[in-house]
């Protein structure tokens, strides 16, 4: 990750206790966001409208790779109703400067070029101009009047092609950097970075192996597929401040990026995060916000911009397409002796794929002595990749977990037993850094082994697959404020955007538990950037895990204040008052005989005894509590059409301790369904001109409800020792195993090994046809 752990980062030891609210199953209708979403009252970014607003639209490159020789906007500006037009000339160029934006890093030099092309258009859909007009139709008319003179260049789409010596180069200044690159290369390349990490002696490991398996997998780019397209409304006032209403996973991070891109003070900008219609890492990056802000500044009116689905696919980050090579060896009795991987990841138009994250997940669930992981971050003429739920991990797990399956078969071992024999546990040394702490991987394997799913009978052409995954939980800056209202009810403001829709309820449960008041008496809201100190994004599975640390600290701060009021009333010291069951009580009989005071009673006394009861926390939460999961899937393969049907699916995952189990189960299911969709059908398809062929949900095939069975879930609970409620991040692990699990199930069903993603009907049928003569010959 490149982030050094701070000695000042906050950890709170796990507190083993019987909870009254946390871990329960409140009525789903009491979920804080539920009713408004069902009735349509929830306000997403596109639901915001400001008086006098203009509509902004983006003109995008139709070419995959082209020099932008000139842009003439004069005719567009003359069209009645057009109030502003922006191009590269309306934004300052940026120096190379890296910053964290969710799980991936960004470079401001590239951010400004991605939001608005400068020297070159680097992918189909790359913005080249934006227009603000009185209506969408006028804006569209104006775009037709903008003349862009392109010099079309050869393009490169596939990662393997982009790595070749004679590949068209995207960036004139790009030389490969990183491990094992000495001396500095003299030849330009699309390979931005080479990474390497080692443990033990890989050659020696392979010498000890009785069996060796080699897998080369290829995966296509896949999009997060959030239902809500990006939308923003920006209002740049004559007073020099901006308000932005937008869909984001991190409004504070967006604010900082806007300040940089527009050369403004951070405090002059307010970003209001709207209800989010799905993010999955895809809303960690600014796209429309700076354009809307600049158009608003030039037009002196608010500007609203909403992407179409076509724009979302063509120009917002999908995950990397990849080429992965894995070589693993084990002894006859099933002990892995060597594990080697090469990860070649598309970054899209600018450096910075999910490679750094993917490379630490490669083998991290096994206890290994000899490891070599090499990775390349490669630019190509595609939209810049963004984070997508466990960024990069599903693709490398596809190669590794299928290799594990084949090794187990060669040893004649059950695939779960093989994994158990090699499973990581507390103290296992990782190949990228620290040894693992208290984790629950073995428990997920044991739960899978004991599950009724294992006993379900399989018919002809049906098979069962298993695969596991690992992801970490990041910490980082987190703030929260709790205000106790005059009637003793609680209002929590937090800053980790509720991208999942369950965080508000989970936090309400924790506040209720801490304060000793009913769940229904707690209101939780995401505060805008003016309400709280800096919050890092909701990314890296940190939302509930890290967010709740700040919530606990803020609530305990308010409790301290409540106890202080009781102490003043009783004329004792604050440390002589304890908080129990929603009441301030004397800590012991020696303190005095006072009637316990409820929160509502204390609120009535608050003014006299010093002021309103509130609490707050601004902390850097320590990274920790990694999550592990194991998936079981049964499939049916139609030998005549290659159609793979998912018959049965079960998830076993360590959640640390479940705060809101129904919400965790939903996360497990949602992640698995995204993984199933990716495994079977989702892929970016390009024409030979380098333009995207399927920028819509008709041909970018995410699963529909009838494509997936009910996903069974099993929450394993091995508490995170550094969290008061034992919480681990859970949102990302569930998307990691499905690709491999489904490939393993297809292999079990019909004996062919698929390593080319997606495992769509034509590919499965082709693999079956190619295997058929071989089978007949045997």
């Amino acid at each position, binding site marked *: 990750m490149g982030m050094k752990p701070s000695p000042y980062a906050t950890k709170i030891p796990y507190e083993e206790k019987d909870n009254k609210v946390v871990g329960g199953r409140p009525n789903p209708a009491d979920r804080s966001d539920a009713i408004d979403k069902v009735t349509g009252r929830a306000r997403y970014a596109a639901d915001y409208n400001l008086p006098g607003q203009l509509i902004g639209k983006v003109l995008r490159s139709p070419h995959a790779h082209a020099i932008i020789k000139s842009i003439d906007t004069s005719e567009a500006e003359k069209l009645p109703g057009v109030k502003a037009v922006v191009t590269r000339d309306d934004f300052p160029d940026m120096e190379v400067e890296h910053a964290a934006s969710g799980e991936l890093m960004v470079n401001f030099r590239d951010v400004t070029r991605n939001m608005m092309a400068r020297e070159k258009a680097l992918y189909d859909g790359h913005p080249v101009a934006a227009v603000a007009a009185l209506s969408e139709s006028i804006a569209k008319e104006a775009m037709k009047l903008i003349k862009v003179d392109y010099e079309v260049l050869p393009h490169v789409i596939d990662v393997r092609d982009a790595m070749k010596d004679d590949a068209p180069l995207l960036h004139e200044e790009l030389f490969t950097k990183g491990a094992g690159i000495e001396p500095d290369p003299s030849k330009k390349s699309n390979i931005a970075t080479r990474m390497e990490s080692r443990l033990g002696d890989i050659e020696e490991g392979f010498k000890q192996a009785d069996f060796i398996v080699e897998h080369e997998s290829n995966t296509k780019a896949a999009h997060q597929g959030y239902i809500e397209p990006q939308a923003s409304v920006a209002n740049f006032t004559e007073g020099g401040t901006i308000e932005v209403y937008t869909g984001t996973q991190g409004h504070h991070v967006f604010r900082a990026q806007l300040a940089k891109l527009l050369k403004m003070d951070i405090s002059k900008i307010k970003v209001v995060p709207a209800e989010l219609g799905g993010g999955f890492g895809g809303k960690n990056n600014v796209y429309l916000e700076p354009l809307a802000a600049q158009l608003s500044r030039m037009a002196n009116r608010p500007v609203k911009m909403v992407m179409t689905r076509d724009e979302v696919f063509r120009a917002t980050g999908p995950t990397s397409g990849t080429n992965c090579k894995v070589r693993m060896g084990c002894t006859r009795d099933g002990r892995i002796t060597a594990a080697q991987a090469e990860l070649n990841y598309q970054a899209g138009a600018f450096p910075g794929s999910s490679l750094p994250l993917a490379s630490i997940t490669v083998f991290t669930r096994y206890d290994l002595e000899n490891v070599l992981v090499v990775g390349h971050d490669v630019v190509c003429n595609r939209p810049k990749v963004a984070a997508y739920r466990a960024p990069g991990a599903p693709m490398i797990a596809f190669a590794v977990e299928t290799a594990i399956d084949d090794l187990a078969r060669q040893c004649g071992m059950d695939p779960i037993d093989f994994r158990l024999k090699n499973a990581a546990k507390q103290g296992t040394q990782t190949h990228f850094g620290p040894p693992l702490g208290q984790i629950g991987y073995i428990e997920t394997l044991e739960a899978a082994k004991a599950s009724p799913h294992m006993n379900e009978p399989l018919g002809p052409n049906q098979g069962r697959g298993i695969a596991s995954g690992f992801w970490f939980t990041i910490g980082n800056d987190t703030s929260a404020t709790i205000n106790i209202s005059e009637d003793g009810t609680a209002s929590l403001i937090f800053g980790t955007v509720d991208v999942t829709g369950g965080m508000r309820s989970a936090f309400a449960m924790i506040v209720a538990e801490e304060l000793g008041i009913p769940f229904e008496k707690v209101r939780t809201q995401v505060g805008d950037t003016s309400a709280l100190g800096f919050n890092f994004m909701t990314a890296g599975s940190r939302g509930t895990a890290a967010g709740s640390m700040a919530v606990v600290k803020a609530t305990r701060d308010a409790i301290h204040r409540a106890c202080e009021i009781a102490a003043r009333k009783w004329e004792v010291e604050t440390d002589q008052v304890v908080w129990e069951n929603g009441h301030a009580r004397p800590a012991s009989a020696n303190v005095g005989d006072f009637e316990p005071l409820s929160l509502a009673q204390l609120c009535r006394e608050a003014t006299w005894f010093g002021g309103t009861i509130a609490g707050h926390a601004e902390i850097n939460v320590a990274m920790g509590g990694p999550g592990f999961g194991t998936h079981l899937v049964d499939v049916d393969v139609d030998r005549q059409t290659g159609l793979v049907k998912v018959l049965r699916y079960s998830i076993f995952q360590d959640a640390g301790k479940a705060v809101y189990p129904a919400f965790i189960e939903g996360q497990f299911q949602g992640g698995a369904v995204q993984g199933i969709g990716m495994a079977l059908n989702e892929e970016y398809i390009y024409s030979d001109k380098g333009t995207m062929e399927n920028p819509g949900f008709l041909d970018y*095939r995410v699963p529909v409800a009838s494509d997936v069975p009910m996903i069974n879930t099993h929450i394993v609970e091995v508490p995170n020792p550094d969290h008061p409620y034992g919480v681990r991040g859970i949102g990302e692990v569930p998307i990691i195993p499905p690709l491999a699990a489904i490939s393993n199930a297809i292999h079990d069903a019909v004996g062919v090994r698929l390593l080319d993603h997606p495992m769509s*009907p*034509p590919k499965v049928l082709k693999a079956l046809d190619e295997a058929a003569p071989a089978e007949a010959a045997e």
Partner: protein
Amino acid sequence: MQNLRYEAPETLADATALLAAEDGMARVLAGGTDVIVQMHSDLIEPDLIVDIKNIPELTEITKEGGAYRFGAAVSGKTLMLHEDFNKTWPGVMDGVRLIGSLQIRGRASVGGNLCNASPAADSVPPMIAAGAVASVAGPAGTRDVPVEDIVTGPGQTCLDKGEIVVSFLLPERPPRSGDAYLRFTPRTEMDIAVVGAGVNLTLDDDGACTAARVALAAVAPTPLLVAEAADALIGTKVDETALEALAAAASAACSPIDDKRGTVEYRIKVAGVLARRAAAIALERAGKNQ
């Protein structure tokens, strides 16, 4: 789209006159599940929209002797709720039931599905297999056109300026007849056929096939009526050998393209597989229709 005109005439004559008089782009609107989507996607910018849902002939389902006639703008959902039509033409309804989603079928019509002129339209192959004939009205009068002759290429029909499809006539069913339509899509719903196959057949008292029509979708620039595939069934008991011959003839008739939805090789192979599976269903249905 700044000068879009919308008209909703109540007579056929008014509708055809409006369409004939428009100099710019005119589009006929029934359910709107293609036209509106194309407008939203900036694929078309019509100058005139003629909504035909207020014209009685376009929205009726009637019996003419033993034959069924239904209006081109009748929604899929209305057909789905017509019990006897479903019993008589289960294969046509297999196709109708695959159009879009339930919500879309509440608006979408068979006439629109045909006139959108996609080679992958799901209701078209079973209509062709059924021997459906379209009644076409225009400024010059009315003519009958077999459904298989309407689509002339992707997005192209044989309709002249001002002409609209009014209704479809499906012939009277002999006893021991059955039809079926299957499509292949990677997803169960909300998808477009990679391949589609419709089969309609009639048996005699001994179970021999006396008449058959086979139509394919998404394997050529237009939906195909494949006489060779029908010939493979006629005169047989629709046994294993006949089904093999049917599959081979269906595959042989394909001239598909490689595209984002499937490869040439895949479509040719699966066309045979689906034709065979559809014939088996049609056979079973025919056996039940004494």
